[in-house]
């Protein structure tokens, strides 16, 4: 399905309706020129208006932008400042022609209106500012799918050792030996955050280990949806390990949506229950260090992971193991050892190598481009395809 997207790019580009472009010049009107054209890269319903003002005509007290209604009357769509500017008229019907003019007012009396301009709003089938990103995404997807296929065929795929993930089993084993619970903190964001989704996938793997070892698993959550998903994920893991009796729904509970209220609640759980292993995997903000330092104070082995660059240093300083950025997303595949999932990891690494090469070529081209025009064009090309508008 995803490979159809590039085809859409080209067919979309061919059939895309750019809408009409209209403009007009005013003679003795303060508004020197007024243009109207279909707003680009939208789902339709928008017309971009742009105007310039004259430096030789007396500045009016106010200027009103007007649109011609279906009944033939002009109605105001807003007042504009007496300087060059632009505005988008929105919530229009696609396919209908809309006519605009600007009227200057002097002491409440309307002066000469500007020329009338028209445009037809239309929906676009491709966002032209995102074509480069679409091509890159397709390339990355192809590479990842290629290596997934290689994994399925049983090709030996080397994946580097990730210390934090290798320690998961040790951490759960330690909790079992000490007779203390395992605490899993899935971050403070909701289920629409990809890090929380990745965290739920890892939770499933950790729950399998706790079910296997017979440890108690506590999952305090900051969002009600996350709690529901976590309950289902853990329940399924316990079922799969043949330990449905060991699943305790009450151990996966909602605390509060408030960031520091949640931090206080989890800190309380740490102090009272003294977990032997703490997992902090997901999206974290200022509460990261509060949680990690409290966990350290109770002597727990701590494995943290986030893709938030600002919180990674705190986890590195306070936790035993830290999954940095991409390692959080690699965790599920790494723990499962399933060939097709490991294949996606390999694809991810190859895609990263591709971007490293693009960055090096881009930097060199931009540097050389300072004195050699063709290199500057190469740099501009890379800049265009890697930019998103």
């Amino acid at each position, binding site marked *: 399905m995803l490979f159809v997207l590039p085809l859409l790019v080209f067919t979309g580009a061919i059939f895309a309706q750019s809408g009409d472009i209209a403009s007009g010049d005013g003679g003795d009107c303060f508004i020197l020129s007024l243009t109207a054209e279909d707003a680009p890269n939208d789902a339709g319903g928008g017309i971009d208006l742009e105007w310039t003002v004259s430096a030789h005509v007396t500045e009016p007290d106010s200027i009103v932008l007007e649109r011609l209604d279906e009944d033939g009357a002009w109605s105001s769509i807003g007042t504009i400042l007496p300087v060059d500017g632009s505005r988008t008229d929105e919530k229009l019907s696609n396919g209908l022609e809309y006519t605009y003019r600007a009227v200057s007012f002097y002491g409440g009396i309307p002066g000469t209106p500007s020329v009338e301009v028209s445009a037809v709003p239309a929906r676009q089938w491709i966002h032209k500012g995102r074509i480069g990103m679409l091509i890159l995404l397709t390339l990355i997807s192809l590479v990842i799918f290629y290596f997934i296929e290689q994994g399925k065929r049983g090709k030996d795929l080397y994946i580097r050792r990730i210390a934090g993930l290798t320690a998961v089993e040790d951490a759960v084993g330690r909790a079992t030996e000490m007779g203390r619970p395992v605490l899993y903190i899935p971050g403070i964001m909701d289920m629409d955050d990809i890090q929380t989704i990745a965290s739920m996938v890892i939770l499933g793997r950790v729950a399998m280990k706790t079910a296997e070892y017979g440890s108690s698993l506590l999952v305090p959550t900051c969002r009600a949806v996350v709690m529901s998903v976590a309950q289902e994920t853990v329940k399924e893991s316990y079922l799969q390990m043949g330990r449905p009796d060991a699943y305790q729904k009450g151990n996966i509970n909602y605390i509060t949506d408030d960031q520091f209220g949640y931090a206080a609640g989890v800190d309380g759980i740490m102090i009272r229950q003294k977990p032997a292993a703490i997992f902090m995997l997901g999206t974290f903000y200022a509460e990261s260090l509060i949680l990690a330092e409290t966990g350290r104070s109770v002597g727990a082995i701590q494995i943290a992971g986030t893709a938030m660059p600002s919180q990674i240093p705190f986890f590195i300083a306070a936790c035993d193991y830290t999954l940095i950025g991409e390692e959080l997303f690699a965790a*599920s595949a790494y723990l499962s050892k399933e060939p097709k999932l490991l294949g996606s990891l390999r694809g991810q690494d190859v895609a990263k190598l591709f971007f490293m090469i693009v960055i090096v070529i881009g930097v060199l081209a931009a540097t050389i481009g300072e004195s050699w025009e063709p290199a500057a064009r190469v740099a501009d090309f890379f800049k265009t395809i890697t930019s998103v508008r």
Partner: protein
Amino acid sequence: MRLFVPLTITFVAGIIMILQFFVPATQSMGESLQEWYMIVASFAIFIGAANLLQVHVHRIRFKGRNWKYSPVTIVGFSAMILTGLILGIEKGTPFNFLFLEMVAPMSATMFSLLAFFVASAAFRAFRASNWRATLLLISAFVVMLGRVPIGAMIWPRIPLISEWIMQVPNLAGQRAVMIGAAMGMVATSLRMIFGIERSYLGGAD
């Protein structure tokens, strides 16, 4: 069927969300999906509140471990809910008073603890146990010195060096993390959209 339905929903929703980013004409479908999520999340708040009460009532009833804290939670929760629902949340209402005089200071207290935790974490991180930790210590010292007036008084170039550390090596490291994370997000999304990752449904089979 147990796997087919959730996998189909994930696939359709995922493809729509990708399409709406690149195809403006499908943006309304993506917006609708996000609205649906908001509706589901809104209803889930009731589930969360019910879970909170259930857990603490159960703990009190069966005199569970540390049960004495549970009445405090229930009283606080009920006070906020009832005052807000019955008397409103405007300025001067009991809810507003409870929020400003209790919730906000308690949140501020938790946030303030961060200062002490930063100090203890920095003490451990900055111990010059090896050359990398020493490099970190020196970098941190220069950055902190460059951010206060005394740094420029000691040597006018310290703020410039501090800025260079933040803008060049630090930013490069952060961007590397972000690029790697973006690759991971793409791979995770593809695995879930195409049903390759199924552990969240209770197994890979």
